[in-house]
């Protein structure tokens, strides 16, 4: 089905199930319970999971396949956001043209930046992309303020033209992004017992885009083009002496991953119609590198897992504060309670970066293949145990035969 082999198809189905049932999966604890703060099933965060998943899938096409480590991919995400917001300002609040323009504009930018940066490889390539991204950030932040809104960011206004839409709604508000009448912010709640599950239009729109992006990534991975990209990573010298020009291959990979970033940026603006320069900063570029490596560079599902993992930590761990800790450990004697809270304190709240950093180090050292390698190890361990059991069982039955 879909021209995929069995293994890839089951991977696609897993991702489809995970994303479509995310409101249930991410809300395992009843609302109002002590564990409710570990729930991640609210629209805003779920949208972010999926959008950064798309971003990381695209980044992985460049980094995972060709081995070219770009440190400037957030620039394309930012460009996509700006393009989408401009579309909302000038054309209409429909998300389709906004996202299309975001993808096209980020594709053009990545063509230009890739063309220059890909003249070098290795660390020089990384530095070039970083330099470009920081230049674009600086431009967006100050020089290009008329286009980008500078420090305050680009926002919608009541007097925007919106040729195909309305400048303001009947109530005098700024219209919200939608898809042919479906508003992105619309949600429906399902209450079962103590649980509350929220189904949000914007989230499901992003989820469908993620599935399409993931499917496209599988096709690219399994195509002759994908094989050539892996060959670039493996041995460029042999490529050149096998009659293959590596430059257009790497450039195509760069542009494709830049367009994925633009798609993510466009979606981000569609969920919340504003764009700021901080989206293009180098920390944002570094984040997608972390996501890809943490999940497993070069694997299909790794970047999606990595993106979910990091965004979960960012949003959930950063929300735990000392008060929460005290309530957790209130069963301990006072002195001990304070001591435990004191020890955990640096790892939560604003210190979540520390937790993330430690986890990242552990993964890189013990699981160089990322979370995917962890999963594979667990599976092969289970398999071994199973075959061992079977082996001893068949051994016992042998004499009877």
């Amino acid at each position, binding site marked *: 089905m879909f021209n995929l082999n069995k293994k890839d198809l089951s991977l696609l189905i897993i991702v489809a199930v995970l994303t479509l049932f995310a409101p249930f999966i991410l809300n395992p604890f009843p609302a109002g319970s002590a564990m409710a703060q570990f729930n991640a099933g609210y629209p805003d965060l779920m949208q972010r999971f999926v959008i950064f998943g798309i971003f990381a899938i695209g980044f992985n096409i460049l980094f995972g396949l060709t081995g070219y480590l770009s440190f400037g991919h957030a620039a394309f995400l930012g460009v996509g956001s700006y393009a989408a917001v401009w579309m909302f300002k000038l054309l209409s609040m429909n998300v389709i043209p906004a996202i299309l323009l975001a993808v096209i504009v980020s594709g053009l930018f990545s063509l230009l930046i890739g063309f220059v940066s890909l003249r070098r490889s290795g660390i020089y390539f990384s530095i070039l992309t970083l330099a470009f991204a920081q230049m674009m950030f600086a431009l967006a932040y100050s020089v290009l303020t008329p286009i980008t809104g500078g420090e305050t960011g680009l926002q919608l206004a009541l007097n925007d033209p919106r040729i195909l839409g309305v400048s303001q709604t009947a109530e005098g508000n700024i219209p919200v992004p939608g898809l042919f009448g479906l508003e992105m912010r619309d949600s429906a709640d399902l209450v079962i017992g103590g649980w509350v599950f929220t189904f949000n239009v914007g989230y499901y729109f992003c989820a469908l885009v993620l599935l399409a992006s993931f499917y496209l990534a599988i*096709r*690219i991975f399994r*195509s*002759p*083009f994908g094989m050539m990209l892996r*060959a670039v990573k*493996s041995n460029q*010298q042999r490529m050149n002496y096998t*009659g293959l*020009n590596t430059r257009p291959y790497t450039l195509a990979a760069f542009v494709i991953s830049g367009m994925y970033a633009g798609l993510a940026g466009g979606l981000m603006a569609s969920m919340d119609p504003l764009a700021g320069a901080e989206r293009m900063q180098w920390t944002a570029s570094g984040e997608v590198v972390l996501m890809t490596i943490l999940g497993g560079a070069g694997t299909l599902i790794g970047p999606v897992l990595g993106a979910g993992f990091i965004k979960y930590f960012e949003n959930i761990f950063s929300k735990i504060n000392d008060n929460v800790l005290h309530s957790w450990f209130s069963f301990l004697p006072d002195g001990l309670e304070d001591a435990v809270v004191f020890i955990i304190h640096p790892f939560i709240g604003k210190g979540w970066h520390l937790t993330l950093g430690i986890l990242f180090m552990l993964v890189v050292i013990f699981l160089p293949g990322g979370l995917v390698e962890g999963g594979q190890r667990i599976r092969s361990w289970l398999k071994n145990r199973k075959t061992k059991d079977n082996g001893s069982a068949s051994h016992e039955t042998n004499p009877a035969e």
Partner: protein
Amino acid sequence: MSILEVKNVGKRFGGLQALSEVNLSVKENSVHAIIGPNGAGKSTLLNCLVGKLIPDTGSVMFDGQSVLGRAPYEINQMGISRVFQTPEIFGDLTVLENMMIPCFAKRDGAFELNALSAVLSQKDILEKAEHMLEEMNMADKRHMHAAAMSRGDKRRLEIGMCLSQEPRLLLLDEPTAGMARADTNNTIDLLKQISDERDITIAIIEHDMHVVFSLANRITVLAQGTPLVEDDPQNIRGNPKVREAYLGESA
């Protein structure tokens, strides 16, 4: 009829004149060996033929067309394949994938944005690669990671990859360097078989006289960046100039 014509090629690196006035003519369907002591300029000459270096003077014509100023991949597409001193293969890919890549390069050219069709649906390429693996006697290793193979197998794979492009000229840079005697003999047999069975010209740079005299039907001796003599193997053996270049005047 010569397929490769090198005329008056010179190359200087700073103060070192690596090549000067090199003239060389490789006849079609011959096995032409280029020998010489260390530092004679053999590898520099080879790099000038494949586009890695551009000579300062002279011309290199392949089948009537100049190769100078062309990128290595363009020269390869003209019909020159190169085997490296240490086997250059795609270590992270499987043996079968290694063999498929040159088949794609032959069919689709230097670049093809074939991003939506599956590799496994390319029946012609698969068939050709499988066939080549069988010919190289490594069909049983097709799903192995290429990097995990022995050096002899890597060399075999590399030669097979070059052959699957159906090149007109195969350049080999010391193909048996660092090999055990048995592997060396296997490689000699393989190359002999290739030159007998195929419509192909082989130019080989080699240190090992055993390899040279088992394979070559024409030999050029290079010394200090200039060809000393070009002749048939039996005449090279007894040539005093060659002895001098290799063993010093006292010999």
